[in-house]
């Protein structure tokens, strides 16, 4: 059997996908990236060996911000290309707009006929990313998933700071003022959604089927809010957090050829 391996080393999580010749997923791995991408890459290799991967018949493509730290990769491909490719595979369409809310950045990728046509990435700033959600959840002493659930029951609060650090102080003063957790959580999700929508305004989302990938894809409330704000249906599915790794594994199949 041939193994097409995609490793997506993101800022918070490392995702690994192994596809067989017929592009079926045979293994999924998810682990925190930790402080060293190189060590994480080593751990992934060990784990894959345990799972019975035959390295003589394997092709490896690495992606994500830690892509250069995978010494055994045959090739590095950027996460933009991989997310585009992976999303097409998962959502069964060659024409997509992919919204990827990752740990440290948010990407919007337009794919036409299976090829990335245009993309936007947020700048050196964690506003509108998973990191933002995580920090705000910490401040409220809940998990990111809980924060999204709370947000559903809240309303009326908006957080004006675009900078995560300032937004955190804003949240702290809201807590001080006795604002309910639900309302603050609403404000946090609202801030992420608005930031993503502003970025999306630069692309013509109306022309595409829109899907959500990345670590936040299984927060239904976030997805609903995105749909409402962008005024388009937004698709998601559990494997969407592996979109980058799936795209990398598909690229690995191409490397072999």
């Amino acid at each position, binding site marked *: 059997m041939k193994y097409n391996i995609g490793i997506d080393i993101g800022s918070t999580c490392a995702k690994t996908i192994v596809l067989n010749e017929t592009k079926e997923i045979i293994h999924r791995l998810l682990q925190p990236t930790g402080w060293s991408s190189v060590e994480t890459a080593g751990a992934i290799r060990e784990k894959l060996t345990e799972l019975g991967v035959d390295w003589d018949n394997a092709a490896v493509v690495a992606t994500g911000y830690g892509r250069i730290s995978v010494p055994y990769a045959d090739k590095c491909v*950027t*996460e*933009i*290309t991989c997310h585009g490719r992976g999303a097409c595979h998962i959502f069964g369409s060659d024409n997509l707009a992919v919204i990827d809310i990752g740990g440290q950045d948010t990407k919007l990728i337009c794919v036409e006929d299976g090829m*990335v046509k*245009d*993309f936007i*990435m947020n700048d050196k700033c964690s506003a509108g990313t998973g990191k933002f959600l995580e920090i705000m959840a910490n401040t409220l002493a809940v998990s990111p998933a809980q924060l999204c659930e709370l947000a559903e029951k809240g309303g009326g609060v908006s957080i004006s700071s675009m900078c995560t650090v300032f937004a955190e102080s804003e949240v702290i003063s809201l807590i001080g003022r006795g604002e309910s957790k639900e309302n603050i959580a609403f404000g946090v999700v609202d801030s992420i959604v608005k930031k993503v929508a502003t970025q999306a305004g630069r692309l013509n989302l109306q022309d595409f089927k829109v899907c959500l990938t990345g670590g936040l894809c299984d927060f239904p409330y976030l997805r609903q809010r995105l749909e409402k704000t962008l005024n388009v249906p937004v698709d998601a599915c559990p494997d969407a957090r592996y979109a980058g790794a799936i795209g990398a594994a598909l690229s690995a199949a191409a490397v072999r050829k």
Partner: protein
Amino acid sequence: MSQIKLPEDFVTYPEARKKAFMALKALKESGRRVVGTYCTYTPQELVDAADATPVSLCAIGEENIPPAEKVLPKNLCPLIKASFGGAVSDRCPFYYFSDMVLAETTCDGKKKMYEYLGKMKHTHVMQLPPGRTGEGALAFWKLEMEALRRDLENFYGITITDEKLRQAIKLRNRERKAILNYYEVGTLKPSPISGYELNTIITSNEYAFDIEKKIAFLEKRTAELIEKYHAECEGKPSRPRILISGCPTHGVIDKVIKRIEELGADVVGFENCCGPREKKDPVDETKDPITALAEKYLRVNCSVMSPNPGRLEALGEQIDDYKVDGVIEVVLMACHTYAIESSAVKEYVTKEKGIPFLSITTDYSTTDQGQIDTRLGAFIELLG
């Protein structure tokens, strides 16, 4: 895929700058007048006619930012900060050796910075009209040319004759042609030269001090490259061909230009002030020299002008002539005029010219190299 092409006698940008500095030192010791300049709007011919050498002052270098931020705000274009920082900290040797500085009221940041710069050394600031089509713009700009002429005359205690001006115009037109021909080596496909080298020779000041020598050098180099193209490159497959647009890029030459080529594409042309922007457009040699200079130096396609339609035309021409596969626009952080034009440029490149476009916003620090690499890498991947 072809490898990055570096000639045997390849010099890096910092090396070229160092050579330029040594040459300037010798020139200065021989008693030559030196005028520091910053911008493409500078009428170099007037400086030449004063028997002075115009030199481009440093507007690059991360190390020049902190000294500037003692006075200037953080949230300002790095090119402006580095210009000021290089001058106040005496780190810019070109500034150090300049008798005076010649600048223009281009963008808001620059013109306000010049108010501070002017406290250290005689700085002549030409008032540039805000648009080239405005009624009275040309007449006003002509008066500014005359004012500069008088100031140079007073400063050096000389007379600038029309004859001298005419000679200077002729010489600079020849230089323009040589530079243009050199840049147009980039129209060959596949390109026989890296964009990094193409750019280094012109923007490093390396050959700035003897125009005749510079012309001869460029003509020789151009001929060699064309020969190299026929001998080694013609008929070979080409890597994706990139045109650079936007703000001046010599401050990010390693971070952006070099990286594009390392990541697998060829930078073949520059539609910015580090390229042949004004070189296609010579000064009229038949008119009264001041009128001809005023006309010429109002036609620079910079975003500080409103409106600035010439930029899109020039961009379109270059996309065709240089057989470009994708345009990468570099916007320096906090440069409003280029940042605002970006949407129109994207629209033009993707809709009218039908090729991919990427805009990146960056500064002179290296902290965002990872993010820049991902964007550049993804863009090159999509060009296939």
